[in-house]
């Protein structure tokens, strides 16, 4: 084999595509966790989004309606999380785990009821998945066109969300208050900021973004929903968030790294003589290595994981 079979420009283009759902989920997680709510339900929310997008598109034959539905589905699942953890002050990790387990099963059940098949939703014809967009101007520049043109709309959304999230977090009232609530909710409360309202907003935004990230898997990258099709991407996004120190740019760069690992592993399959299962391990092993090396050093928002209860 030749190394350029793996390391070439199309590998980077593939990295951009594969990172997209991770970036959206990680930015979503950032809004939740910067506000002080651990969101390990990203995986479940992505699954809900992926399934809803595929199922709604199959019924309406319109991927845009599917996409919006996925965002709404993500919002609703996140609302379960928010009500349980903010209103009822349940343990955030337990609630997140429950949601992840729940949405391993719910799509199969709904798919069985809607389409008579629990394993997957019907295959969508190509014209019913999200279109590829060419960006005028960029599509005529040799290298950039391959990297940044001809992608699904969600890819561009993810790219735009990175600076947008930075701006929201560091330049707006909402961002300042969200960060304050995640670090020291009492201080925010005494300054007249509603801790619950900010946390709801953060968790719900994580639902919308992770839901869209899920939709990318089923109606962008693929053309149907298959069981557990996120395959741990929600957790990888969470790892990227930690690796990127809860910063929008850092987290997104970390997502690119994981996206690259996945792209390499896909390309190596069948090219090198290692059993495919081992090659598929690459992104997950990388996640563990990164977390083991960084989890102690990255400082999370101080109030993360702690429900806010007024003294006495």
């Amino acid at each position: 084999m030749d190394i350029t079979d793996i390391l070439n420009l199309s590998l980077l283009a593939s990295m951009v595509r594969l990172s997209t759902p991770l970036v959206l989920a990680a930015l979503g997680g950032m809004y939740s966790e910067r506000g002080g709510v651990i969101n390990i339900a990203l995986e479940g929310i992505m699954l809900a989004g992926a399934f809803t997008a595929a199922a709604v598109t199959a019924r309406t034959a319109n991927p845009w309606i599917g996409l919006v539905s996925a965002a709404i589905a993500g919002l609703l699942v996140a609302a379960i999380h928010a009500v349980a953890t903010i209103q009822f002050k349940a343990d955030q990790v337990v609630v997140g785990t429950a949601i992840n387990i729940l949405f391993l099963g719910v799509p199969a059940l709904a798919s069985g009821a809607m389409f008579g098949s629990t394993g997957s939703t019907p295959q969508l014809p190509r014209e019913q998945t999200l279109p590829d967009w060419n960006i005028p101007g960029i599509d005529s520049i040799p290298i950039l066109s391959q990297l940044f043109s001809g992608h699904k709309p969600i890819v561009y959304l993810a790219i735009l969300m990175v600076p947008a999230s930075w701006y929201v977090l560091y330049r707006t009232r909402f961002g300042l208050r969200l960060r304050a609530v995640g670090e020291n909710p009492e201080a925010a409360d005494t300054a007249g900021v509603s801790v619950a309202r900010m946390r709801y907003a953060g968790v719900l935004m994580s639902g919308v973004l992770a839901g869209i990230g899920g939709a990318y898997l089923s109606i962008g990258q693929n053309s149907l929903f298959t069981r557990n099709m996120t395959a741990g991407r929600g957790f990888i996004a969470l790892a990227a968030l930690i690796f990127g120190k809860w910063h929008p740019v850092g987290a997104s760069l970390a997502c690119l790294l994981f996206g690259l690992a996945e792209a390499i592993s896909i390309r190596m399959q069948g090219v090198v003589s290692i059993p495919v299962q081992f090659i598929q391990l690459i992104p997950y092993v990388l996640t563990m290595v990164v977390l083991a090396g960084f989890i102690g050093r990255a400082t999370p928002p101080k109030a993360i994981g702690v429900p806010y209860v007024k003294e006495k």
Partner: protein
Amino acid sequence: MAEDLKYAVEMRGVTKRFGDVLANDSISLAVESGSIHAIIGENGAGKSTAMNILYGFYAADSGEILIDGQARSIQNPGDAIRLGLGMVHQHFMLVEPLTVTENIILGSEPGSSFAIDFKQARARVRELSEQYGLRIDADARIEDLSVGQQQRVEILKTLYRGAQILILDEPTAVLTPQEVVEMFAILRSLRDRGKTIIIITHKLAEVLALSDRITVMRDGRVVGNISTREATAEGLARLMVGREVLLRVEKTDAHPKDAILVVNNLSLESSTVHGSLNDVSLEVRAGEILGIAGVEGNGQTELIEIIAGLRPQTRGEILLEGKSIDRLDPRRRKNLGIAHIPEDRHRRGLLLDFDLAANSILGVHRNSPLSGAVLLNEQIIAERANRLVREYDVRPPNIALPARALSGGNQQKLIVAREFDINPKLILVSQPTRGVDIGAIEFIHKKLIELRDAGAAILLVSAELDEILSLSDRVLVMYEGRVVGEVDPRSVSEEEIGLMMTGGKR
């Protein structure tokens, strides 16, 4: 009463109940506009509760509040802020990774929903800080500021929100003597500019020096309302406690004998200045109290914990009666006669959910006759616990209660009882009276002197300079992990020792 006398704040018959506890029993007080009004009382007297009601944190069960003569309903801190109230909490309400400006504007940011106007915010912060002499770097991060500077940020926060009435909860508890002087000057200048200031405290000397009027609370009730000019420390203490209290520690000169503890060139390496030790050497003899003065976080905690065996040193040796104890774990050190009253009783001193009997044997729980080879000897433990509770006046005297159910002072008395009962040769005492009321302070101080006179060597660390100076026979001053000097507690001035504590003089 004169007609022109204006009250900024009046509370009339305010009552608040938490479960079975009557925290505020129909309290009434009136604060003159443009004055400094002190509210004093022991822990649990209800002074913080009253102020939290005023600031909208808690809802009163009954009673009314008047601001500038008008009855107002204050449901949450937002209402209080709108009425011109501002509160500086004992534990600062600051977001550490954010900047000074971000903290000050939080909740009332200038600009639009889409963009905070940071330029305007910074300008306003500078303007306020100049106007009131509260010097601060508007772009510094809170975590990089000293405690005194953080307190200035808290005051600026209230002024930024247009506060006319400032409530300060134990504002001097965390300050060095110099910072206290500066703080008083700031508070006086605020008053002279027409602000009304309410200060909650238990330090009588400060009340007498600073305030115009004093409200004394005890057991949830207002028991006195006096003009500071007519008040004396003894009189205030009697009102607070409900009986005569000895404010000064009574002791005779020490008669030190052989050295019990010798520490040679002790060093601890740490990534920060706070938390490191540098070549600390000291000696504590039988029958004396060696005090360590210093601003908290200058190595005192580490020093005590290393001697107690709770953390290892990087270099240096520790000798107890001439023998090295460096390799012994905390239990073995305790069995050699080292008692330890830790600074954080909730973290190091007690198991809050265990009963008093279990807490009374921590550290000696393997020793005969409390324990047999396998099983604890419940009856002997209970008898001993009952004796300790009686001798040390722990209330309520019920050894089946969880430690959590006790007040801070009684929790501390339980720890003191447990530690002193082993007949210690060496006593390591850290912040012995933190969060402890006057009655219990008197008791603990008396016990320490008793043990000293019985021949124990005592190493005392406290953030309360008064406590160090009145109890100790000799005093070392620590700054940034070093011993920067020794002073005679009988002759040193507060200014002189304060300067040493902040690294100003060696």
